């Protein structure tokens, strides 16, 4: 077979992705691709094109034992069943958050941990531990009203897609979120706080991080998903 013919390569790659290239021809083509980076690129390009058709299917509920088997195969620690159904809106995720009784406990635990390393007992601090829906802590936000600073500690490094940024918000129940600026997924920040913001932080119930275009929300309000939220606790 003249596997170098560009048209043939395109045609075979397309039918490989579509699934109509079958049997021995399919195996042979896979072997060929494993040794030919250019061919893999052609396949990948077809996978992008045709793969998007899968977005149109109507979802079907999966029995729970499938996830249990996958965890077992991968050697995961047994963890709570993945939550089904996504809380996509900002306010929904806040509602969820309020219902979590563990929040304050975790926040205090972290505060105690940090104070071990702080020689003087700092009072008048507001802290929030930002967590994912799975309650994995990602940032600890400490607002120090005496020194008028906000410190963003990294608890677990997060990953952000290229071209996107994490934006921190504080929310007082019933009011619109107020931006506290962009925060880094992996670097501690120590930022000055204006008197105006200090006032607002005292009244805030919740802090949250949304995913925004690089440079921050274009509207002044969260526009992307809000994967991280945390209750504000006074110390």
């Amino acid at each position, binding site marked *: 077979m003249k596997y170098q013919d560009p048209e043939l390569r*395109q*045609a075979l790659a*397309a*039918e490989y*992705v*579509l*699934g*109509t290239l*079958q*049997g021995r021809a399919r195996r042979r083509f896979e072997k060929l691709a494993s040794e030919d980076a250019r061919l893999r690129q052609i396949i*990948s390009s077809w*996978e*992008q*094109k*045709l*793969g*998007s*058709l*899968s*977005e*149109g*299917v*109507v*979802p*079907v*509920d*999966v*029995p729970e034992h*499938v*996830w249990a*088997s*996958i965890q077992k*195969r*991968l050697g*995961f*620690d047994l*963890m709570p069943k*993945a*939550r*089904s*159904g*996504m809380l*996509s809106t900002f306010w929904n995720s806040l509602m969820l958050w309020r219902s979590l009784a563990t929040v304050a406990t975790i926040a205090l635990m972290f505060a105690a941990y940090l104070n071990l390393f702080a020689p003087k007992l700092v009072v008048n601090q507001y802290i929030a531990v930002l967590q*994912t*829906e*799975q309650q*994995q802590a990602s940032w600890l936000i400490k607002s120090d009203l005496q020194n008028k600073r906000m410190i963003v500690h990294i608890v677990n490094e*997060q*990953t*952000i*897609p*290229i071209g*996107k940024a994490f934006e921190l918000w504080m929310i007082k129940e019933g009011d619109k979120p107020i931006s506290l600026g962009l925060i880094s997924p992996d670097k501690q920040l120590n930022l000055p706080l204006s008197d105006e913001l200090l006032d607002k932080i005292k009244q805030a119930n919740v802090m949250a991080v949304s*995913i925004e275009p690089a440079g921050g929300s274009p509207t002044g309000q969260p526009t*992307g*998903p809000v*994967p991280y939220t945390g209750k504000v606790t006074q110390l």
Partner: protein
Amino acid sequence: MTDQLQLQTLLAASARKDEQAFAKLYSLASANLYAVAMRILKKEAAAQDALQEAFVQIWHRAIDFHSDKGSPMAWMATIVRYRSLDILRKQKRLVNVEDIDLEQMDKELGPLGKLLESDMAQELWICLQELNDKQRNAILMAFYEGLTHDELAERTATALGTIKSWIRRGLQSVKGCLER
């Protein structure tokens, strides 16, 4: 509708072996991906096997995903389709291809809005509209149901050579259209 950006973030975290992120990814994507496997395999046990194989692979290959490889859902669905096709070819097809109801399939695919999640899906859909009905249906049946050339010929009562040419030319036109 699942947010592609969130899936992308979760895939990136899974690449760093974040088990919680992977659990979340599973909870968000599995119903869609299971549907992809069910369409091809028609049998729950087989579709569950395919889904399981695929997620094991997604965990190990998450690091290979980049947003320039298309939408995360399309990327994961491709893995599910390949595993499903493997399983399908290993077992004798137990479903009579005559039973596959093309009208029902069109209905399930529903209004365009359902499909138009990513930019690529939108462009592809527009390009598929440029094909004649027979070409488009042959491609969609192969994609969604995993039908072979022979099965497509049988299902549409068309000569094998004609089916092959519909698909080959159809795919060529789609490529040309997408590159315009």
